[in-house]
């Protein structure tokens, strides 16, 4: 006669523990071993998913008054962030919620637009394909914001590591065009309380 084995709680717990271990090892191996491939496919999916955002509304900029007459819609891609010194060229979106930051670099809506003469705050994940190499940026490096209404160049003045609650390190000025880029620091999984920040100002050269 065939004997029935009861699927006991102990066996179930063992299965769960082993699964959890496998899941953890698998994720770590896949993420670090294939992050470039993952990124390529993620970008592909994002390109399809955010088709609406790629068809951004036309932005108009009043050069005399240094003011955007028509702003990009929240979540729209309206340009690119280019830092040649670290071979970075990434899409720039208006807004910086979680969803937007998964697409590319996010522009904090409570800061000004390039050319308006105020602070511009841009955030990006510290993953490959985002601001992973931001900490390699050095004083004097050039940053270009190639946006739909013009190209704006900035020169890195300084960099520093700050606490996420140190809002004085993210000044919002209306009369000084200060470009601020930041990402979590150091790299790694989990919540990071520090940020690597790059400060750049208009490059007249």
């Amino acid at each position, binding site marked *: 006669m065939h004997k029935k084995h009861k699927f006991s709680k102990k066996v179930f717990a063992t299965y769960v523990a082993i699964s959890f271990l496998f899941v953890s090892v698998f994720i770590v191996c896949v993420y670090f071993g294939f992050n470039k491939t993952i990124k390529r496919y993620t970008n592909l999916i994002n390109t399809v998913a955010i088709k609406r955002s790629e068809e951004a509304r036309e932005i108009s900029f009043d050069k005399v008054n240094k003011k955007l007459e028509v702003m990009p819609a929240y979540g729209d891609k309206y340009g690119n962030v280019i830092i040649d010194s670290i071979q970075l060229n990434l899409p720039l979106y208006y807004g910086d919620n979680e969803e937007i930051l998964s697409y590319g670099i996010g522009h904090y809506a*409570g800061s000004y637009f390039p050319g308006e003469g105020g602070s511009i705050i841009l955030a990006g994940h510290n993953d490959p394909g985002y601001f992973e190499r931001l900490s390699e940026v050095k004083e004097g490096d050039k940053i270009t914001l190639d946006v739909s209404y013009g190209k704006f160049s900035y020169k890195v003045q300084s960099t520093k590591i700050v606490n*996420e609650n140190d809002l004085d390190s993210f000044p919002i000025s209306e009369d000084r065009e200060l470009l601020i880029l*930041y990402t979590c620091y150091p790299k790694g999984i989990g919540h990071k309380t520090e*940020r690597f920040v790059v400060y750049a100002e208009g490059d007249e050269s």
Partner: protein
Amino acid sequence: MKKIMMTLFTIVLLFVCSANVSAMSESDLYAKLTATYNINGYNFTISAGDKVLAKKYLDAYEVSSKDADYIAGKIDEAVSAMRNSGVNDFSDFSKLPKSLKDTLRKLVEDIAANTSVKATVKKGKVVIFNPDGTVFAEITKTVKNTGMNMSIIASLALVVVIAGAIILIKNAKVNA
């Protein structure tokens, strides 16, 4: 009698005119919105980023003086509720008493229901809408969490967990 009626009419007219004069303009509303309020010893003002957002909204859209008056009234109610709560530290809104958070949420909902300025509060996030219903902006903290993009890891984890669950179920059926 006629003289009394004329006097009454003049008083009413004057009252109406003065009411119009005191109606709030967009710049008055902006000043009220961005003012610093002393609440139980704590100097409260909205963040510099939220001030920029308020300016962007008022530059982009016209807010009627009627709506501006209504919003100004709600700002007064908010300040009053904050004072009455006895709280003296507003640096972290997530730590405010639930009753106060509910009151403030209700004020935002009142504004959305009774003026052209549409907003919602969900999961502690205030979203402001354009008149056409699309998102104007989200009011969030200035500095975001920019650690590893967890959505990629979460997706992978989900796949593996599902695979693990299937294996468990199959094993359970075999052993049954």
